[in-house]
């Protein structure tokens, strides 16, 4: 079939401005009927803005949207729905205590005399589910089903509404590797059945795997559209970032020095349950090495870092930093003793979103003499400092130091936190998932910074869920499983498969015996 010019949706010359920034600058995106079209770009490149324009959440200053070749006006999401445009958001919009079926029909339910007609709805959903291979349990409550199934529910929601244009906003961010493979199959199946798919992502291998064409955005501009089969991951990353990207970190062998952090038989309570999340963990981190804590999410890594940083009380054991016992020290004392911390949750812990960028840059340091005099903040110094960090670490924002943190893109928020923590220049760096949700360009940058910190003689404790990151960046790997360290591995000698066995709890070393030997 030749569908060269059969466009189901065209966004022509879209321009959308926000105060101080052109989020979309003359962007054209043409979606062919029945294709999977990937939209690739760094954080803050304008992907979300473009989709919000398509969804009627924003009105563009310039440009035109066409459906089946006819110009349309989309003033709000209801207009988008009427045009059969549907979206699976990165964070699902489901009601946890409702059943799967009720979630699917919610807002589009057929009623007779005010009663919901579930029987026919069930038939339709079951049919769709069979046709597209979307296995769901219609009577289960959403809170009890896996993330992968929740996503299938979201897809069924779109299909139930007879949507023809399906937008997937970074759908793989929350999935396990097996679930990602399944999703790819589902997407291909949908396209075969004539649905047109817009796939927003910055994961190159997924785009190479599933898409027909790729449109690339960079800093709000349209860079180009290419056929996936005519391109490579390297070329795509160059288009996205604007220069060559190293997908593998280049680093010299570690030269560890004396011990900085010594943890002995540490226990940390879990906030949710009445048992210890960390059960007797012992390890050391030395100067000039990156030690990585690997593991599947929820095996006590977060709590371990909370215990080390002081956000959670330790229920047993000992933490020594440079020979000083800090097990029960308050957060400020630990910070002064030499712990910097890139937190896992940048919105909850890392930033005060309603503060400006410069205020966030001095979140710990605002009382130091360089920023405060007799209890008064030295605003000039804070501004100068923030400007230096913004420059050095390439933190991009609409209005520089006075930008509200909330209005910045996720990647630049993370860069701001990393700038702040690294610039404090402390002997120990705790970095928890420092590249989560970031694009390759930003990841490369952050990896380089972390390696540079190591080479300067800092002790780095990295917690990561990404196997690539673990293998690439670390000098030593500690695997955590159910609150314990079950193995210590050398990234140069181990394989991803072996690591996986430890992470799944299928294999473990007796570290105590080895330590004695």
């Amino acid at each position, binding site marked *: 079939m030749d569908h060269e010019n059969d466009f189901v949706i065209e966004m022509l010359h879209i321009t959308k401005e926000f*105060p*101080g920034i052109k989020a979309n600058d003359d962007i054209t995106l043409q979606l062919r009927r029945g294709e999977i079209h990937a939209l690739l770009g760094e954080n803050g490149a304008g992907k979300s803005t473009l989709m919000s324009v398509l969804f009627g959440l924003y009105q563009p*200053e310039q440009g035109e949207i066409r459906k089946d070749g006819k110009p349309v006006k989309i003033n709000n999401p209801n207009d988008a729905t009427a045009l059969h445009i549907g979206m699976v958001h990165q964070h699902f919009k489901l009601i946890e205590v409702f059943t799967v079926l009720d979630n699917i029909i919610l807002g589009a339910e057929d009623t007779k005399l005010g009663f919901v007609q579930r029987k026919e709805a069930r038939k339709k959903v079951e049919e769709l589910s069979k046709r597209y291979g979307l296995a769901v349990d219609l009577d289960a409550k959403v809170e009890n089903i896996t993330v992968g199934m929740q996503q299938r529910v979201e897809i069924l929601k779109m299909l139930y509404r007879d949507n023809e244009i399906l937008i997937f906003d970074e759908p793989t961010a929350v999935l396990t590797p097996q679930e990602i493979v399944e999703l790819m199959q589902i997407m291909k199946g949908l396209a075969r059945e004539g649905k047109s798919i817009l796939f927003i992502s910055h994961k190159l291998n997924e785009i190479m795997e599933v898409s027909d064409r790729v449109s690339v955005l960079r800093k709000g501009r349209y860079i180009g559209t290419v056929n996936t089969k005519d391109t490579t991951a390297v070329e795509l990353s160059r288009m996205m970032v604007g220069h060559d990207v190293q997908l593998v970190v280049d680093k010299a062998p570690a030269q560890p020095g004396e011990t900085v952090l010594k943890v002995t038989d540490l226990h940390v309570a879990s906030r949710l349950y009445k048992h210890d999340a960390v059960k007797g963990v012992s390890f050391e981190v030395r100067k000039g090495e990156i030690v990585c804590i690997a593991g599947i999410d929820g095996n006590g890594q977060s709590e371990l870092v909370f215990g080390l*940083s002081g*956000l959670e009380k330790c229920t047993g054991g000992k933490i020594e930093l440079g020979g000083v016992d800090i097990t029960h020290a*308050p*957060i*400020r*004392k*630990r*910070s002064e003793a030499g712990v910097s*911390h890139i*937190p896992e949750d940048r919105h*909850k*812990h*890392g*930033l*005060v*979103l*309603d*503060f400006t960028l410069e*205020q966030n840059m001095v*979140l*710990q340091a*605002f*009382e130091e003499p360089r920023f*405060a005099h007799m*209890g*008064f*903040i030295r*605003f000039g110094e804070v501004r100068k400092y923030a400007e230096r960090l913004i420059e050095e670490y390439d933190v991009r924002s609409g*209005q*520089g130091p006075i930008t509200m943190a909330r209005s910045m893109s996720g990647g630049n928020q993370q860069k701001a936190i990393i700038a702040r923590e690294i610039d404090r220049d402390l002997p120990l760096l705790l970095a928890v998932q420092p590249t989560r949700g970031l694009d390759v360009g930003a990841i490369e940058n952050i990896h380089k910074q972390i390696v540079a910190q190591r080479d300067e003689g800092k002790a780095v404790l990295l917690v990561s869920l990404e196997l690539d990151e673990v293998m690439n960046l670390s000098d030593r790997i500690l695997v955590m499983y159910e609150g314990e360290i079950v193995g210590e591995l050398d990234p140069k000698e181990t394989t991803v498969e072996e690591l996986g066995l430890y992470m799944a709890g299928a294999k473990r070393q007796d570290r105590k015996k080895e330590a004695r030997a």
Partner: protein
Amino acid sequence: MKKTSFFDKAGTRSVLASLVAILIGMLAGGVVILAVGLTNPALGLSGAWEGIRLVVGGLFATGRTASGQLTFGFNPASFGNMLFRAVPLIMTGLSVALGNKAGLFNIGAPGQYLAGTAASLYVALSVPTNVVPSWLVWFVALLAGMLAGALWGSIPGLLKAYLNINEVLACIMTNWISANLVTWIFDISNLKNMLEGTKSGYIYKTSTIMNDVIIDGVRQTVGAAVPEGAQVVATRGGVATGKMGLDQLFSGSQVNAGILVAILIAVVIYILLAKTTLGYQLKACGANRYAARYAGIQDRRNIVLTMALAGALAAAGGALYYLSGNTEFFWNTYQSLPGEGFNGIPVALLAINNPLGVVFSAVFMSMLQICGQKLTELTAYNEYITNVIIAVIVYLSAFMLVIKTWIGKLRSRKAVDK
């Protein structure tokens, strides 16, 4: 970076949003006046027109001519009384605004206000002024009031910080405890006004002169005039806020230097929040308690400190109002809470929690009170009509953000049109 124009600044928009809220409130008040006037044969359309003029310009009303026409002009007594009544509103407004900035809803201002009133009255009326100079008694009484308010405010603060009890619940309960405690303390005190026969429901004005005397071996309290043969043990009272010439500027009013003290405190709070490390900490805790904790800021200490400061501010409102020397406190208050305490909430909302804005919104609220007074004095209307206006404004304050974005949209539409 592009320079933002005057109308695109967040501050300008906030002020505009407040003005829009006021305007709509006034319009709603006008509609109510019209409706009441037209349904009341005693008022009619002309009465309604008078009512509307008084609600808008009641501050300038000077009375009626012989032929019954309303007269308007500069009325120094109304102006002075407006400033005088603004003092407690400024203080409770600051109290609520400070709490809001730190993420705490201080609905405990009435209780703190009462605690401050009681402590300052107790000190002002108990310390013998023949020993201690009355200006010093005044000052100590103000401090005692603020201290009492700080202690009272810190109770919900401590409960919130260490037991995670919602401060709104704790504040509402401490309000009533305060009302009952104050009633009980004054009931067993010797500060009830026994010198004027009908006034025993009230506490002495602080300006009252009382002499503790011994007549025929019996100790008793008499007024300024000491009976012959009585031996004076101590003289109390005679404490009042200085006028600093304001009474000459606004003759016939109750105004005193309290308004200057209140403005000074508002400036101090503004500087505290905007310029100091303490203000930075409080705002950080308010905006994101978790991030503040992550950064090593002691969020628990800051919650208690904020509530104590807020309590001291509300209490200073009560102290300044009753230390004026020309107001008397109805002590049997266990069934009611002072409106000044609750009115701090609309004052702070209207000022969008800006301490300097609080001064203006408090003066505005007290102007509405004067207008209401004039309505009662000069027409058949009831002064409570101004409460409708306040209610509408408070209601709109909750939509302030909507109004702000609405103004923003209006601006950007204009920009497109150009």
